[in-house]
Each structure stands twice: as structure tokens, then as C-alpha cells.
């Protein structure tokens, strides 16, 4: 086993990508490693003609993946939008891996991301000694992606300052990056495109200017559709976490996961699962990723401080932490939920007591 903490998608799933490429028969857009149909198959999983199974990378709507891939075949860039924890970066990594065979052309957007990080920088030692020249130019992932015709990923686009964001406009509409210092330009090779991700819950981010917005097709990744889908995701991720952390606690019962997912889904959607009663919605996002961390947290609690069995009491603190983000408003919401929904459920007595004791 390699000692790398986390491998890239194209390394982890090299086998699947290779096999898909072999089976591929349709027409590929220029510089794409796979046909659009195969990219979709790679993302949502399926069985190839030779019987090989492709594991699903994204559990959810196939249509959304189709829209994403179709967008990348047009000359518009793709913006993946959604709550934190809805697999935006995950999808973008796998899209890049499947289309270009390379998910490493990435820029992490922060408030401090400068124009040089997106366009190009200078190697100042060379610049001083040789003057402006191609050799003194420091290429960014965007520039390399344009030259090689690859997919470039920009994470958290909205965190980048508005003025810096707008440098993307020319790149996306004219597909060229001028370098006035050298009186030259870099024209994008076919196959170049941009996948950006942004989340729609954070405050204090820089909204895209409408000029830039127009260069992107937006796909909103939703929270999981059905109960079973979400349980499936939580279970898979918790199991992989257990392996990494070598936790002493026993594997969580499906029942416990089901309860967490139920609570999260109900509070998120504002209605009980049977659809009969409406509930107030707390201010937090309550994403699937948070449900996963509540279960992981509970497992650690049970393993190190409890009796090794995941119990309601181990989970209660995590749930409270995830739900109550605003100490006044959310507390009322939670109290109401506890009293009107959790309390009447006969088999939920333990979790009701555990949560009430904490509150």
C-alpha cells in the first residue's frame, strides 16, 4: 500500500479509466480521453460490455452529470454550486480526471488569490538577469491547461476578490490569454475548459459579476434525494473513515445511521418523513457531510470513552452541535423539534432523553 495520504482520482481509478477508454467507440471531442457518454458512466457507475463494473463516484441524479458533461462540450465553462458538503469538489476532480486524465490543474480560490495566480507570474531572478522572456514567465495551471487543452479546476471561485475573478472573462470568452510584456498571447487548445466550484451558503463572499456569470453554466448539486441514497453515502464514508482511523468502536448499526439521517433530512427539508407535519428549519446547512462527521464523532466517543457500542448518548452532542448554529433561534427550533417530533416516537425514547439532558 502506498504511503501517500490521498491519491488523485486518476491514480485511484486508473484501471476503470483505462477500461472505459478501451470500450469506448463513439466520437470524442478534441483532446478528450473519453466520449461524453463514457464520462457520465464513469461518474454514475455502470457495467461495461465486458462485464467490468464501474463504481459510482457520484450517488445522485444522472441528469445533473449529463448536464455537466454536455456543458463542457460547449464553449461555456461549468460552475458547480451548492451547499457545503454536496460533493462539488469531488465531482469536479472526477470530471477532470475522466475528461483530461489529469485532475491536478487546480487553483484554490481564497481571499488572497491574486491575478498572478490565475494568469501568470514572473521568476524575478530571471526577469532581472535576462529581462522579460518566455523563460522568466511562471505558468499557472490555467495557462498550462490552455496550452495542453485540459480541464482546469478553480475551487471556491466566489472567495476570490471580484476584480481578480474578472480576469477570467477574456480567458473564457476569447479563449486567449494575452501577455503584453512579451507582446504575445497564449491561445487555448481545443479541450480546454474550466470547472469552478462555489458554495451558496457562506456570507461575505464575492458574488460573480453578471459578465462572468454569463460565461458559466450553473449546475446546483442538491442534498441527497432519497433517504436510502443518503444512508448509503453516510455508510460508505463512515466505513472508509473507520479503516483509516482504526477506531476501537464497533461498526455502527444501520439503525443508528438511519436515525441520524432521518433527523438531518427532516430538519433540512422542514417536514417530517411521513410528510404530515411541518417543522421549522434551523440556520445550519445540515449536509450529508455533517451527518457523516456526527456518526464518526459518535464512534470515537463510543470507542474511547464509552463501551464501544454506538449509543444515543454518544451521538447527542454531535447532533446538537450540528443543528444549533445560532444559539437563540436554532435552540428554539431544536426544542420544538424535540418536543413535537422526537418525543412521540416510541422507539426514539433514548435519543430524546439524551438530547434533553444536554440541552
Amino acid at each position, binding site marked *: 500500500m502506498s504511503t501517500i495520504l490521498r491519491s488523485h482520482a486518476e491514480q485511484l481509478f486508473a484501471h476503470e479509466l483505462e477500461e472505459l477508454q478501451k470500450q469506448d467507440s463513439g466520437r470524442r471531442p478534441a483532446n478528450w480521453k473519453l466520449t461524453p457518454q463514457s464520462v457520465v458512466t464513469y461518474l454514475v457507475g455502470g457495467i461495461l460490455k465486458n462485464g467490468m463494473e464501474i463504481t459510482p463516484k457520484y450517488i445522485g441524479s444522472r441528469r445533473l452529470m*449529463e448536464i455537466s458533461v454536455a456543458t463542457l462540450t460547449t464553449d*461555456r465553462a461549468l460552475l458547480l454550486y451548492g451547499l457545503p458538503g454536496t460533493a462539488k469538489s469531488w465531482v469536479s476532480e472526477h470530471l477532470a480526471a475522466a475528461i483530461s486524465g489529469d485532475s491536478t490543474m487546480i487553483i484554490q480560490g481564497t481571499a488572497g488569490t491574486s491575478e498572478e495566480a490565475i494568469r501568470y507570474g514572473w521568476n524575478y531572478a530571471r526577469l532581472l538577469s535576462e529581462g522579460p522572456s518566455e523563460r522568466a514567465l511562471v505558468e499557472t495551471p490555467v495557462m498550462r491547461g490552455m496550452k495542453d487543452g485540459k480541464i482546469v479546476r478553480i475551487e471556491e471561485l466566489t472567495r476570490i476578490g471580484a476584480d481578480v475573478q474578472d480576469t477570467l472573462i477574456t480567458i473564457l470568452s476569447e479563449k486567449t490569454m494575452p501577455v503584453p510584456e512579451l507582446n504575445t498571447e497564449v491561445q487555448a487548445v481545443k479541450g480546454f475548459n474550466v470547472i469552478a466550484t462555489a458554495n451558496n451558503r457562506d456570507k461575505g463572499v464575492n458574488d460573480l459579476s453578471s459578465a462572468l456569470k454569463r460565461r458559466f453554466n450553473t449546475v446546483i448539486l442538491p442534498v441527497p434525494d432519497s433517504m436510502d441514497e443518503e444512508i448509503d453515502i453516510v455508510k460508505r464514508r463512515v466505513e472508509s473513515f473507520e479503516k483509516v482511523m482504526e477506531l476501537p468502536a464497533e461498526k455502527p448499526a444501520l439503525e443508528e445511521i438511519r436515525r441520524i439521517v432521518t433527523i438531518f433530512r427532516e430538519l433540512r427539508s422542514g*417536514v417530517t418523513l411521513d410528510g404530515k407535519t411541518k417543522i421549522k428549519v434551523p440556520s445550519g446547512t445540515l449536509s450529508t457531510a455533517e451527518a457523516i462527521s456526527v456518526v464518526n464523532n459518535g464512534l470515537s466517543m463510543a470507542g474511547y470513552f464509552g463501551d464501544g457500542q454506538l449509543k444515543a448518548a454518544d451521538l447527542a452532542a454531535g447532533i446538537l452541535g450540528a443543528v444549533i448554529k445560532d444559539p437563540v433561534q436554532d435552540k*428554539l427550533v431544536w426544542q420544538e423539534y424535540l418536543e*413535537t417530533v422526537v418525543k412521540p416516537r416510541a422507539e426514539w425514547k433514548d435519543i430524546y432523553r439524551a438530547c434533553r439532558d444536554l440541552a
Partner: protein
Amino acid sequence: MSIHVLGIRHHGPGSAANVRQFLENLRPDIVLVEGPPEADEILQWADHEDLQPPVAILVYQGDDIKRSVFYPFAEFSPEWQAIRYAKRNNIPVRFMDLPVAHSFALKNEEGPKEETETKEQLPHPMETMALAAGFPDHERWWEHTFEHRRKNEQVFDAILEVMQAMRASDLSRHDREEQLREASMRRIIRQAEKENYKEIAVICGAWHAPALTDMPPQVSDNALLKGLPKVKTECTWTPWSYNRLSYRSGYGAGIHSPGWYEHVWNYPGDDGSRWMANVARLFRENNMDTSVAHVIESVRLAESLAALRGLPKAGLEELNEATVSVLCTGENVMMRLIGEQLIVSNKMGQVPSAIPKPPLQVDIEKYQKKLRLPASADWKDYLLDLRKENDLERSVFLHRLQLLGIEWAQRSEAGGKGTFKEQWRLQWDPAYTIEIIEKGVWGNTVAEAAARFVMAEAEGAASLPKVSQLLSATVPAELPEAVEALIRMLNNLSAASSDVLQLMEVVPPLVSISRYGNVRKTDAAMVTDIATGIITRICISLPNACNSISDDAAQTLLELLYRMNDSVNLLQQPGTTAEWQQMLRMVANGRQTAPVLAGYSTRLLVDGQLLTEEPLVRAFNFAMSQATAPAVAAAWLEGFLKGSGTLLLLDPQLWHVVNNWVATLDEANFNQVLPLLRRTFAHFTHAERRKLGEKVKQDGGEASPLPMETNFEFDANRAAQSLPVVMQLLGYS
């Protein structure tokens, strides 16, 4: 002589175009269309210029209007195109199907068993075909295979073959009703043959096509159709709407997107540009900036999506997805607008005014006759005594009409005591006929239409006060189904509402329904559950709502608190009462609570025997203590004494506390609190005020110590022993 069977999908624009083209090439001398044979006579209206689709043929059982069936037609319905073709070319057109008279009679025999249930459980016969072709559902398969097809040679032959194969593989569907229907269709075709028509065009649902092509011997059909029961039916044209054509209004054989179909019908060659241009126009009308570039980009994305999915042409789904992605920046909110305005579209048809009456009108006239409430242009007053059966029925009827928005009857306040009287003024206006036709889409009887209309209105309003108001209007109309739906809606809305005042307004009517069983068939337990649920919510958020509010807001809340308390007491649920009292304690002791509310809560605790004697005096003194600003103290007192001065008269401890407090006020403070005190005491009855005044006079109005009740034994011997000393001190030795 030949018979041409054209298998179609009802309301398929592609099918309609094919039918029209086919008929124009064939030039038949008679057209037979799937539909109720009873309606043949009203087909004469079909080319009337005032008859604008969407319209529907309504067939109903004369003596039981609830038994009815609609056959809707849109401009793009193949049946409609066939009828219009026949009328244009002056050739006969006839409906063919099992006469509704028989199918109603058969259903009546079956009893109230729901026939839809069994049908829904079976998968659609075309599902297998769709799956084999790689489509997720049969609708999309059919749409892309037949409706969106541009070249149409032999399309009807293809459909026939597909259906033959499917019918052969699936015999389970040939239930009796279907056999009867197909036998009837064949009978009508044979009749046309007998009348020596040469070219017969038959337009029917695709599923029936094989049964009409390979005809079994006439004898077996005749045997099948012999001796069927029959009822008397009536039929008429009614205006229809696209909204009612869509699935959303619960019409079984409907279509998702009438507006889109109309677009496809009008512009069969559109690659999506025209549709997207419409979308862009709609967005601009709603103040969303949409450029031409947007339109271009979305058409492109829709085309790439279609290519990715291996479709020849972008359909509605691809266009919608492109709209969301390109125009709406991924948000679905605007799609609802597109859905309402373009995909479904709110087009309404019309029918000539000379056409026979709709069933709702018939039902209203029936009641007017039965209840002796004639429709006259002059107004007339009625005083109804609800204890009499006829008057009660009249009241229910009038309430229902009011719910429907037919303003025939105006209610005014009835004089005298008691709730059993209602005063109504009735005045008929011919314009109501239009209203009635319009409301006819909600149901065929007043009760049914009123119930559905109220439910739809409540769903549209989705605000607590409105729903609560509708609920109180619906209760006297005796519509248990609607009341139940409204109560459930109320519950959901109350859960989402953070406005305690609204919640508090909702509770009293709910409690009175649950206590007095105002609605006979409503499940009282359900109402009680919901009422207690709402009270719990109120208990959680009320203490906060009482904090730091203005005097006016406090007065409103005081009134609500008063009514809420009555309701809680009326409900007599120990758990809820305990919760309520707990909440009252919190309000009474809250530091930030508006004083008038704190005072009233304290008083309610006293009434409930939860605060007595010592703690009561302590609480009163605390609220009235010197450190409290006089205005605050007076407000507290107002709340505390709300509604009754008797408490003050009968409780000597309290009397003294209050009396002492007033007496110790200095002049400036007294002037300040005087108006507030006056307001408090003004609410008392005259007798109470007089008694209070007498009591003050009698006590001299001075500050006096709290009377102590002394009750110990007097020891005369010991007292006698002290006498000499006392005498000595006084100088009497």
C-alpha cells in the same frame, strides 16, 4: 371499400399533425372518432365560431350528477383535428365507444368500489417497449418515437404493428369493460360499412387499433353487447383549461405540458430557438435581464444534451435543463413561472352561450327549488332559525355558495340573543351564471365544488390568518372533507410560523371545534391533537414574545392571552394545562415581560389556585414595591385586576396591599398613575365600583397596617398578675 385505423395518443401534437395530413391525402367520406356516442348530437356545435378549444364534452347521469365524465379536446388533440376536418369538408363524423349510459350503469352495479385502484397497479403496457429502447419511461419513448418525428410515412402502420405485438404478449388487460368498449367501436364501424361509406377513417387510442383492424365475427360482439344495463345521461360542452388538462389537476388521462404541446403543434419545425425566445421574453417581463446570447447558449446546451442522450432533437426536458443552467444560474425558482406560464399555460376555452346548462347550475337550481329559495332579481330577506331542519339546510346551502364566491346571499347580523339565528338577504343577478360555469370546473355539485374550491384557495393563500378565516367560513357550510384538509394545513402552517400572535388566534376556534363537535364527521381526536401541538409551540415561544414590547402590542397580547386561557381550560387536557401553567409562571416571573402581561399571568395563576396566600402577597408586593416605576406598577395592576374587581373586594389581604399602595403614593406619582388606574377600574361593573368606593369610605382611606388575625388563647390568671404593676405605673396605687 376500406377501413383506415389511425392509432393515436390522446392530445399528442405529432399524432394530430399526422391525422390531419393523412385525412387530407385520403379524403375519406366518413370519420369515426373515439368518444361517447351520446355526444353525436352536440357535434353540430363543433364548427361554431364561439367554440374555442380547450373545451370538453361533459357526459353525466341525469339523476346523479356526481357520476360524470369529461372528454377534453385541445387544438392539438388528434380527435379535434379529425372532427374539424370532417366539419370543414362537410362529411359525417361520429363518435364510437361504449355508450356512457352503459358504462355508468355497469359502474353503478359494481357499487362504490374504486375502479382506478387495480388499474394503477399494473405497469403501463408500453413500459416494456420504452425500456427496450433505452428510455426511462413510456411517455418519453412515445414522444420521441412518434410525436417528435418529422417524416411520417407509414407511421400508423408502425403503431398498429407495435400494438399488435404488445397486445399479443399481454392478455391480462382484456377486462370486461375494455372488451365491451372495443365491441361497441366495431359495431359502429360495421354500421358505417352497412350505410355504404367507401373510405372510413377511424381515429382511436393506439391501444385499440389492432382490435378494430382484425375484426372478430359480428355475432360474438352482438352477444357481448346484449342486454347491458342502461341509465339516462345528458351531455354538453363546457369550457376547459390547459391547467385542467395537465396532470396536476388530477385528471387521469392528462398530459404534463399542454402549453409545450401547443407550441409543438404551432411550430413543428422549431429547434428550440423559438421556445427559448419565449422563455427569454417571459423572464424580461418579470424583470430578469436576459440577453440574446443567453438564448443562443441555452439552445446550444440543449442540443448538446440531446446529442449526449442520443436524441435527434432537443425535447422539453433538455430545454428546461438548459434554461435552469444558463438562464436561472442553477436555481429552480424561476422554473415554476415557466411551468405555469409556458409549459402548462393558463389558456381557457369558451363555448357558445346557447349550449345546454352545466351540472353545477342544475344542482343549484335543484336546491333552490327544494329549499324554496327562488332566484329573483328583487332582494328578499330571510331570517333562518337553525333549529328547524329546513332552515338549517338553507343556511348550509347559502354558506356553500358564499364559499364559492357566488354573492347571491349577503349575511347580516341577526338581532336578539342566541346563536341559532341567521339573517340573509338574497338578490339574484344573471351574471352569476358565468360565475357558476366558471366554478363548474371544481365539481358538479355545490358541496363538491365548494369543498374543492376552498381547499385550492387555502393552498394558494398558504397564510395562517387566511386559512383560519377560511376554516371558520367552512365550518357552517358542513364540508367535513374540506374542514379536515384545512385543519391539516393549519397545522403545517403553524409549524412553520414564528408569529406567536397568529398561532394564538388560531387556537380558540380549533378548540371550540374539538370541544363542541361543530363538524360532525371531522375526527375530533385529530383536531385535539393539532390544538395541543399548537399550544405546545405557543408555550415554547410565548415567554420571549412577551418581552420588551410596546404598550399597544401588550394590550393585543393580553386579549389573546385571555382567550387562549379560556381555550386551554376548555380543552381539559391535563398535560397541556400543566404546560400552560408552567408557561404562565415564566411570564409572571420574567424580568423583561411587559408588566401588564406579568400581572395578568399572576392573576391566572391565582385563579388556578397555584399562587395563594403568602406567595401571592409576596408577589404582589414585589411588583408594587417602591423601586418600581409607578407607571409600570399600575400596568401590572391593570393586568392583575383585569375583568373583575370582585377579587379585590373579597380578599382582605389583597385589599389592604392595594389600598396601602395607593395611599402611600406622593402627589406627583399619584397624578402619573391616575389615568392608568382609572382605566383599570373603568372595566369593573358599576356595582363593583360602588362597593369599592363604600369600602374605602368605611376604612377612612388611610394607610393602615395589614390586619393580623390573632387567634391565641387568652390566659386570664397571668394577666391578673400583671395588673398591680400596671396600676402602679399609672399612679393608681
